[in-house]
């Protein structure tokens, strides 16, 4: 009996402790943005700026575009982040605010000498119709094809651009990687690999000394300038979405990202703000 009573006391103490920690949330309104990890760096940089200037508390979380949409519908975030076009059903349920677009870089190992590929050559590589780098003037080495995992926005963007079907992808892939960082890690460690990653992420990784490099696509140099003037052909839009007109903190964040300061921050992250 005594043991039972101590057990009850212990349980209530535990519960009290859990509640106490829950109540210690900051008083300031918290702006929560969840969704595409590609949008995350932008939100992160804007968050720092807004904390410094306005004392706002912005919290970003990844989880993919679809999570951003579902959290938005369920009211679990202030704004959702999406890195792909919305489906018609999705469009009917939320308001989408385009904030920027992002180039998709074709990335190889730094030791790979090839100059670039065309869209058709990219298709042939990913369909395993061409399997050796020597076909493109590279060294005599097998081509290792890297894809992103199911559910990632870039996989969808790449599929749409090259016209590959899901079945063709699973049949010819050598490596499936999760997020951008993982694709970069695979390619940095595999001298004969090819993959596609958010352009800004590759530029950052290469600057940090990782042995990866971007190649030309259809003869267009993969630099921010060409993404900005839309001569670089492979890019995708970044959206912030909201169930109704955004209120309070969500509104402030959105307005900030569309202001000149916000656009400067987006450019700093190697994304292209909308004019």
């Amino acid at each position: 009996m005594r043991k039972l009573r101590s057990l009850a006391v212990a349980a209530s103490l535990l519960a009290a402790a859990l509640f106490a920690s829950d109540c210690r949330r900051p008083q300031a309104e918290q702006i929560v943005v969840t969704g595409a990890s590609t949008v995350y760096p932008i939100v992160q940089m804007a968050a720092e700026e807004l904390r410094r200037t306005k004392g706002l508390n912005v919290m970003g979380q990844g989880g993919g575009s679809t999570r951003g949409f579902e959290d938005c519908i369920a009211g679990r975030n202030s704004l959702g982040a999406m890195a792909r076009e919305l489906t018609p059903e999705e469009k009917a349920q939320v308001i989408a605010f385009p904030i920027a677009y992002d180039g998709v870089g074709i990335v190889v190992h730094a030791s790979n000498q090839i100059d670039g590929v065309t869209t058709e050559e990219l298709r042939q590589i990913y369909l395993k119709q061409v399997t050796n780098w020597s076909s493109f003037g590279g060294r005599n080495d097998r081509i290792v094809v890297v894809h992103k995992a199911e559910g990632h926005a870039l996989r969808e963007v790449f599929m749409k651009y090259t016209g590959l079907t899901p079945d063709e992808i699973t049949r010819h892939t050598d490596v499936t990687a999760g997020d951008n960082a993982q694709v970069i890690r695979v390619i940095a460690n595999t001298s004969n690999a090819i993959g596609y990653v958010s352009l800004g992420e590759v530029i950052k990784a290469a600057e940090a000394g990782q042995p990866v490099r971007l190649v030309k696509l259809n003869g267009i140099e993969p630099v921010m300038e060409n993404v900005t003037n839309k001569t670089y052909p492979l890019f995708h839009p970044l959206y912030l979405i909201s169930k109704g007109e955004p209120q309070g903190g969500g509104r402030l964040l959105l307005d900030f990202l569309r202001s000149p300061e916000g656009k400067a921050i987006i450019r700093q992250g190697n994304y292209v703000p909308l004019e």
Partner: protein
Amino acid sequence: MFRWNRARWFWTGTIGLGALPILAIFALAIFLFWNATAAAGQIGLRELATTEWLPQQSRYGVARLLIGTLAVTALALCLAVPVTLFSAGYLSLYARRKVRAAANAVIGLLGGIPSVVIGLWAMTWIVPLFGNSWISASLVLALMIAPTITLLSGAALRLVPADLLEASRALGVDEAIVSRVAFHHARRGILGAVVLGTSRALGEAVAVSMVAGNVVSWPNLTRPIATLTTTLIIELDSAAGLHRDALYLIACIVLIAISALSVFGRAAQRRAGI
């Protein structure tokens, strides 16, 4: 009424904190089962038993992932068990005490290396040789489960009574027969060691996902392969809705398999007196 004396504080604290890990395990299991049953109900067992895993096309067949897991684990065992048994036999039956102590310390250290470190090493040393493939994944796994099997089966062999071995030697048989006697006597403990190693192999994710290629396919030694855990690790961060619940279902399958093997392995070890 309560009177809060020292003894009561002591028991309250002890029982409360002692119950915490158990509650945590139950909370985890309930959370996984909750999401998994939701997914199983919505997807249907017939669909789950198919071989097509294409969540974007609403295909949720886990059969090939399961086969991938079994294939990678089985090959890893085939690679690891012979080596580890010879090594355990030498260290427990013949090595001098100093050698054994040093070797066990090193093997224990190998078992403590974080899997992401092993994965990075394997990406630069194993993948260039064998590609992102079934064989690479199994080699990495074999390396990771070898310490568990060596140390546990070594402990089982150490429990073989010395007079049993001396009696065999007195009969004039050669050392191969003597060690067979030792292995026969320790067979339950060794089985337990192998089973516990298997459960570690089933749950390993990070290192395997860095070398396996993670492409859903029929097992082929030199082609990429996906397992239950590698699929979890590369898809969970971007999955939503039913896709996410299906991944919880996969997590649930892994949890059940590992729990069952752990219980079985420990039972075998207990019967051997370890």
